[in-house]
């Protein structure tokens, strides 16, 4: 092994990340090379073979006596209660994050109910507009969904959730700078009053509401 190669390997060697064979090569080189032993030997010795430590006599007894003196009973219950809560929160941080996301969507859903929506989709005889479509078609919701679709594509959680709740929604970021949201015609069983046209499904363009940087 060359000295230059050893210099490159020493950090991994000290981090214990080398394969055993490579670590053995390093050991052999350090034992044989004066230059590398002068450069690295002291540090390796310090980190692998330092002088031992001995505890002062009676330290254990002093510690136990002090714990007994300062905390005569079991650990305080107030700590226990807080500790249980803190531990639960640590373990369930992901549950908390999901709950926060759900609360966000539900809040938006409820808020959007206040919007009657100036961008109400036109209907024809084959398309019925359910109340949920009206709610989702509000500007705030539609722009949020369009932004989510533009950023993450049709599989974003927001889009999937909206599509799950409102089956008529068909969200496809046809172009990254012009995401569109279409409404599928719902099959009502009524005979069509107008001849079917290609792409007759009304489209809702949300470009004005999409921040420009999303389309850059």
């Amino acid at each position, binding site marked *: 092994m060359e000295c230059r190669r050893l210099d490159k390997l020493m950090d991994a060697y000290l981090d214990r990340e080398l394969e055993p064979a490579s670590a053995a090569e390093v050991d052999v080189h350090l034992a044989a090379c004066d230059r590398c032993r002068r450069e690295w030997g002291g540090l390796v010795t310090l980190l692998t073979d330092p002088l031992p430590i001995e505890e002062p006599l009676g330290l254990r007894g002093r510690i*136990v006596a002090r714990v007994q003196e300062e905390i005569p009973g079991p*650990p305080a219950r107030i700590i226990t209660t807080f500790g249980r809560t803190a531990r639960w929160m640590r373990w369930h941080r992901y549950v908390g994050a999901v709950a926060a996301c759900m609360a966000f969507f539900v809040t938006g859903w409820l808020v959007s109910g206040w919007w009657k929506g100036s961008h109400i989709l036109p209907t024809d005889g084959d398309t019925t507009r359910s109340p949920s479509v009206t709610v989702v078609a509000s500007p705030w919701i539609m722009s949020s969904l369009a932004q989510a679709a533009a950023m993450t594509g049709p599989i974003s959680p927001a889009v999937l959730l909206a599509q799950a709740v409102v089956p008529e929604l068909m969200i496809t970021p046809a172009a990254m700078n012009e995401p569109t949201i279409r409404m599928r015609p719902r099959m009502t069983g009524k005979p069509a009053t107008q001849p079917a046209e290609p792409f007759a499904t009304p489209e809702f363009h949300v470009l004005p509401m999409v921040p420009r940087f999303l389309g850059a």
Partner: protein
Amino acid sequence: MRQNLDDSGTGPADLELVDAAAKGDRQAYGTLVDRHLKSVYGVALRILGNSSDAEDVSQDAFLRAFERLELFDRRWSFRNWLLKIASNLAINRIRSRGRERRLQLKIADADRPGCEPEQADVPSPREWAYWLDQIDEAQRTAIVLFHFQDMPYAEIAEVLQVPVNTVRTYLYRGRKRLRELMSGQQTESG
């Protein structure tokens, strides 16, 4: 005669002892002290550099751990959780006497340049107290926990409240500083 304590961990598992101690079983807590005192004292001593402070910090660490047994995160080992407490206490103690410490380091630095130490004055690489004293407390703590206590990066990061990459940086810079000092000392002494 000083005693060496054994922390082999035989007998009930640490978690069982923790549960018993949380309900007030002092004997269980005494067993935990027996098992982990060597590690805790060793970390405190290597960070602080003197046995008096190290003993105080060790006592404080076990006392605080007993008070907060319910906060013990079982994703950790009990030993590493204790070492986290001890390290933080040791670092706080260093910082609380920061001004005095910086003055001591300045005096130590002033003595070094221009000096031609005799070979007998150059500390052995095994004299960890001297060498670890030459680097700052964050690098020192990272080196002590990683090299002397085999603590993984993620737990050292939690102890120091820094990202894992910062722990790697501390280790790298601390070792680099030590290497430069040691190889420089060896050059001066011939």
